[in-house]
């Protein structure tokens, strides 16, 4: 009897010990590679040290493929707990996957969400519910080559503030040096580039539901006419983002407007080659600056239970000001938490690395990236890409091309209104 009792107590003790050391594994899909990938892993390792009961398995997938990979994993019922989702796909993901509303009181105290700027949470806010928190956000900004400015007889310390000043500087660069003056990113399918251009000019790219394009207004047409004129005059050689980026980094282009996420790469390329300057996105006429964020937000898919609890712990960890600022400093992504300078490490960083100031100044001027519904999206984006191709070919003015494109886009998206 005594022997049986000791066996039972031994088993109970083993079970208790095993339970005490049981770890919950959560799976985090992301598209960070290279240095940002290492930084992310370091942040996850720190999280694991603080929470020894949680193991975070991170899975890297290319940014262009991550949405499809996550879809495939969900379809195959492989564990997917936390995902980096490209901003424009948030609405689709919220509807098509078991995404969890982060501000649902069932998920515990939701005050941690208040750390983020409200405008940064807007991209993930659907009918009052928050399905995504910002993570790898970029903002468009003006990079310029101060050496080319000097060569063209421009004041390298006087940064072009408005589009008129940008065009004037680009024209002078082209005339005096023969080099390319300026380019503005278009991004995949021309979607993000067009969105930023027209939004900053005061037009509405897509309505909040993503079912109607509305940029065929005088402001939208005018700014897209300017984009056509940039190509027509030769100050912007028609190319794609990779080619513009390569030319700028090789010191062959005066100005390039692209995401703040490119800052680290541009700083490294410019080292010993040219003097790099960074400025805020140019203002359009009298309009206040309004720029859409690029990049990815984080969504939660973990099922209710230990995996969801562990995933929420991770999201709360990522929302800590010191962690978020560390992520921003190491990667070049925008700071996401209110008043980042309140963190002494961040204040020191900004003082020592002034090139980051434009993106911080644009935090309050950031609008959520437009999100697309699933149906008709490809057709609509193809029309937008074709619009850019036709604009740059300059055979018809923007006033003819833009309204026609908006009509076609809305025709493609109308399938969502019939539901």
């Amino acid at each position, binding site marked *: 009897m005594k022997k049986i009792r000791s066996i039972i107590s031994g088993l109970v003790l083993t079970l208790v010990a095993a339970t005490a050391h049981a770890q919950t594994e959560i799976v985090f899909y992301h598209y960070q590679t290279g240095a940002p990938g290492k930084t992310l892993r370091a942040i996850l390792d720190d999280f694991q040290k603080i929470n020894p009961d949680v193991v975070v398995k991170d899975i890297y997938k290319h940014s262009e493929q991550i*949405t499809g990979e996550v879809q495939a994993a969900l379809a195959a019922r492989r564990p997917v707990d936390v995902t980096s989702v490209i901003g424009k796909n948030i609405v689709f993901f919220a509807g098509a996957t078991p995404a969890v509303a982060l501000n649902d009181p069932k998920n515990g105290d939701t005050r941690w969400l208040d750390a983020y700027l409200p405008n940064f949470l807007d991209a993930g806010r659907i009918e009052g519910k928050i399905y995504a928190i910002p993570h790898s956000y970029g903002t468009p900004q003006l990079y310029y080559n101060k050496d080319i400015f000097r060569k063209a007889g421009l004041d390298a310390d006087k940064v072009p503030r408005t589009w008129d000043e940008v065009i004037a500087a680009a024209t002078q660069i082209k005339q005096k040096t023969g080099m*390319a003056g300026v380019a503005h990113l278009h991004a995949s399918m021309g979607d993000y580039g067009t969105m930023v251009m027209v939004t900053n000019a005061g037009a509405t790219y897509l309505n909040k539901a993503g079912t109607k394009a509305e940029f065929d207004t005088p402001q939208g047409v005018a700014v897209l006419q300017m984009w056509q004129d940039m190509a027509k005059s030769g100050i912007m050689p028609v190319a*794609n983002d990779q*080619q513009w980026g390569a030319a700028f980094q090789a010191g062959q282009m005066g100005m390039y407007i692209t995401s703040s996420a490119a800052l680290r790469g541009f700083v490294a390329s410019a080292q010993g080659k040219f003097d790099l300057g960074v400025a805020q996105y140019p203002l359009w006429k009298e309009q206040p600056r309004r720029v859409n964020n690029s990049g990815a937000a984080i969504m939660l898919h973990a099922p209710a239970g230990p995996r969801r609890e562990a995933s929420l712990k991770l999201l709360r960890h990522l929302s800590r000001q010191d962690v978020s600022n560390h992520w921003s400093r190491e990667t070049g992504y925008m700071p996401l938490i209110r008043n980042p300078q309140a963190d002494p490490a961040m204040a020191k960083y900004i003082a020592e690395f002034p090139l980051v100031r434009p993106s911080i100044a644009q935090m309050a001027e950031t609008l959520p990236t437009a999100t697309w519904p699933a149906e008709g999206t*490809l*057709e609509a984006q193809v029309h937008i890409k074709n619009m850019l*191709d036709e604009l740059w070919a300059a055979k018809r003015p923007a006033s003819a091309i833009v309204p026609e494109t908006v009509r076609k886009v809305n025709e493609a998206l109308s399938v969502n209104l019939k539901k």
Partner: protein
Amino acid sequence: MTATATPLGTAAPLPLRGRQWPLAPFLYLAPMIVLLAVFTYWPLLHTIYLSFVQWNMNPDQPMRWVGAANYSGIFNSPLFDAAFRNTLIYIVASIPLKVLLPIPIAIFVWTLATRGQVYRALLFLPTLFSFTVVAVVFLWLLNPIGGHFVQVARLLGGQWPNVLTDPDLAIWTILLISTWKVIGFNTLLYVAGLASINRDYVEAMRLDGASDWSLVRHLLWPLLTPTTLFVLISTVIFAIQQVFTPIDIMTEGGPQNGTTNLFYMVYQYAFRTFNVGFGAAGTVIIFAFLLAITLIKMRTLDRHVQYQQ
């Protein structure tokens, strides 16, 4: 007693033990049958099924039967006409570039015998490069701002056209890059075909005073027809897949849908915008299209193929 003899050259049927079904052949074939069933025919059947439903890959959401709506959606898509037209261009242009052009190159390399190994290696080298790397490198070379082609043209006093933004030139640029990438592989197939030709025939024709042209016309070309048929079928099937990576990296199907094709369109529907039904319907259309082309080729060309030397 009358002896029954098996005619020469025909195999006697294997005796069956009683009424037993011969298991051994099926056991030998089983691994391949299972692999084909699981990884080829089941996905094919499932794709056909998916082409009739509306579903977004979410296992918790039901598939909705929509009949032929996905097919009509694909045919009415603003992408379809351009994708289909470009698919035909990619296929038809691949025949002279990837099927016929390697033949003279292979014959040249073959005539060099062992000295041709260097050429063979140089020709084959691009096949080993990742298509992603090739596409990125060509983006640099063709960069209108200081790209190497632009600089060389400038040195020669000319101007290099912006080939990737011109709707008329972009598709030919993609085609030439994919030709550069695969021509070495097809050349190698022809060299292998030539190596199987008995050199005695060549010597005999030479002794009869045959010219180079008649050697090619009456000996090499007929004996290369099995290889040519194989290269033709595989090139046509892969022609639209081979250009996928350069399209995705260099043009995204543009300018003005000038480089897209059915294969890229399917990818965009299925994996960029998660329209599984349209993606599956497009896949079935490609399958039927390639099957029809292959059957036509087999029916019309196979009778001209010289399988025996």
